[in-house]
């Protein structure tokens, strides 16, 4: 049952991603991507990572994609303003390149005997997750939180200097 679900979800995610990356309208692309992320979140759940699945929905589908939408709207990249997307001339070689790379990867995976074994269901409860996270990686948690702080400050700085620049332009 879960195996079948896995394949269904997997192909859904791939299809959504494919649609996402080929859209010319970024709003559409974001919507498809949200779709893909939902599928992915379910995949995570199937693989025994409920916490990651939840965060995938909350952070990616929820926060980040909304952020994208905000920006798209803020910059008024509405459909009529959308720049012409790449044509086949551009997609052709890129697709070929990507396919070659994918084939290489799959070949490598195929020849590696170790990867043919089945993945057991390995459930990680939030309790275990939290314990390992804070016991084993306290330093990494610190570093990542600082990273987030810096990102916030940085984003603020970039935005602020923009306003200053605007003011300078007007004066």
């Amino acid at each position, binding site marked *: 049952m879960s195996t079948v679900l896995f394949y269904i979800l997997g192909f859904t995610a791939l299809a959504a991603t494919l649609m996402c990356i080929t859209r010319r309208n970024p709003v559409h692309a974001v919507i498809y991507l949200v779709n893909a992320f939902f599928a992915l979140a379910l995949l995570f759940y199937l693989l025994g990572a409920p916490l990651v699945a939840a965060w995938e929905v909350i952070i*990616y589908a929820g*926060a980040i994609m909304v952020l*994208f939408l905000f920006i798209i709207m803020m910059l008024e990249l509405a459909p009529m303003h959308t720049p012409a997307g790449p044509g086949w001339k551009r997609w052709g070689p*890129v697709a070929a390149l*990507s396919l070659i790379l994918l084939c290489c*990867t*799959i070949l490598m995976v195929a020849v590696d005997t170790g990867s043919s*074994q*089945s993945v057991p269901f390995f459930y*990680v409860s939030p309790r275990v997750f939290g314990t390992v996270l804070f016991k084993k990686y306290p330093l990494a948690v610190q570093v990542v939180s600082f990273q987030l702080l810096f990102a916030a400050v940085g984003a603020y700085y970039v935005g602020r200097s923009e306003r200053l620049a605007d003011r300078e332009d007007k004066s």
Partner: protein
Amino acid sequence: MIVPMSHILAFSGAMFFMGFACVLAQRNLIMILIGVEVMLNAVGLTLVGASALWGQVDGQIFVIFLMAMTSAEVSISLAMVVYLHRRSKTLEADAFSGMKG
């Protein structure tokens, strides 16, 4: 779950290269960023799969770190997208070649 690891890897690989193709093919900065997001998520899938395969929590933990880093990256890069759009009224990636040698 009776999925072989290779299939998980194949899925994530396919997703990764879709994102990769997006980054290469699209000219719009927003779309490029979206491609990057796709690639990152593909990596997340691999990590979770590996975590399940070896029965270790660490893989999932790294997905969390990955998400945190991604949100940091996205906030900065979107701020810069805004900045750049304000400056040159375009989001064409090729319009920004200030690093030309």
